[in-house]
């Protein structure tokens, strides 16, 4: 298990306000201290990751929760640009999306996603998935840049 010394910075890239609220709600019971930042499209995500104003002073995320279907730039484009950037490619990306299409799953792994989760239908099931992410990624996994 990891020993937490500072909050885990999570960047959530999600344009569905309801999913953001549900995710925040599900993470309120987390055993670790989380610092969740939300951006609503792929372009904003890349500005954030590259610390481009207005994101010049934001922390580097320890983990990214990425939707695939996003305005401006979609999740696949974000993954692709991250893979080409030596400073960004080591940040773990959890894809959380409505799609369960084979093409999306395979392409997303090809683009370097660390895991692919299909958003379940129903409030309880969605919260269960977020809790599973919390229990695994924020408690068990050794994240880069964290001592």
């Amino acid at each position, binding site marked *: 298990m990891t020993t937490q010394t500072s909050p885990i910075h999570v960047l959530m890239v999600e344009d569905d306000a309801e999913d953001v609220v549900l995710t925040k709600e599900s993470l309120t019971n987390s055993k670790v201290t989380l610092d969740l930042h939300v951006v609503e499209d792929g372009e904003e995500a890349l500005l954030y990751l590259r610390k481009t104003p207005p994101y010049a002073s934001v922390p580097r995320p320890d983990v990214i929760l990425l939707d695939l279907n996003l305005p401006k730039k979609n999740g696949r484009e974000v993954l692709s640009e991250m893979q080409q950037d030596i400073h960004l490619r080591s940040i773990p990306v959890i894809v959380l999306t409505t799609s369960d299409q084979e093409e999306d799953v395979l392409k997303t792994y090809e683009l370097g996603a660390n895991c692919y*989760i299909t958003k379940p239908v129903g409030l309880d099931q969605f919260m269960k998935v977020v809790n599973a992410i919390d229990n695994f*990624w924020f408690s068990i996994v050794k994240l*880069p840049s964290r001592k």
Partner: protein
Amino acid sequence: MTFRTRQILIIDDDADDILILEECLSRTSLHFQVTALHTGSEAIPYLHEFSHGKIEGKPDLIILDLHLPDIEGVELIHAIRRHVILRITPIIVYSGSDDQERLHACYAAGVNCCLKKPSNIDEAMTLAHAIHEFWFTTIQLPNSYVQR
């Protein structure tokens, strides 16, 4: 709940550690089969033979001890990520070390996650549950679609 037998490839030079993890996995409700390799000199020919169709049973998941006696772990990760069939198979790396540089190198090389290597039965059980409940229950694995 799926009852398909999951293929797990474990690469670890400590045969006892593999046996303990197998025992812990068998205490979950996962149906699985383990292929165990112990060194780089076993793993590299395995990758070669696998790509030539000489080995059956594509792994759903690869568990790799970063510290192998005869190959740099990150080099083996690169070899798997270049492999024609296994290039998107999830790799879980475990290690006893907290070396940040190697941790970054592992993620940059394309591992799916890095964990602390279990040092007792309780930690091995935690890993077994995580494999069952997260990797084989919550997420979509590429092997769900690709059949050899």
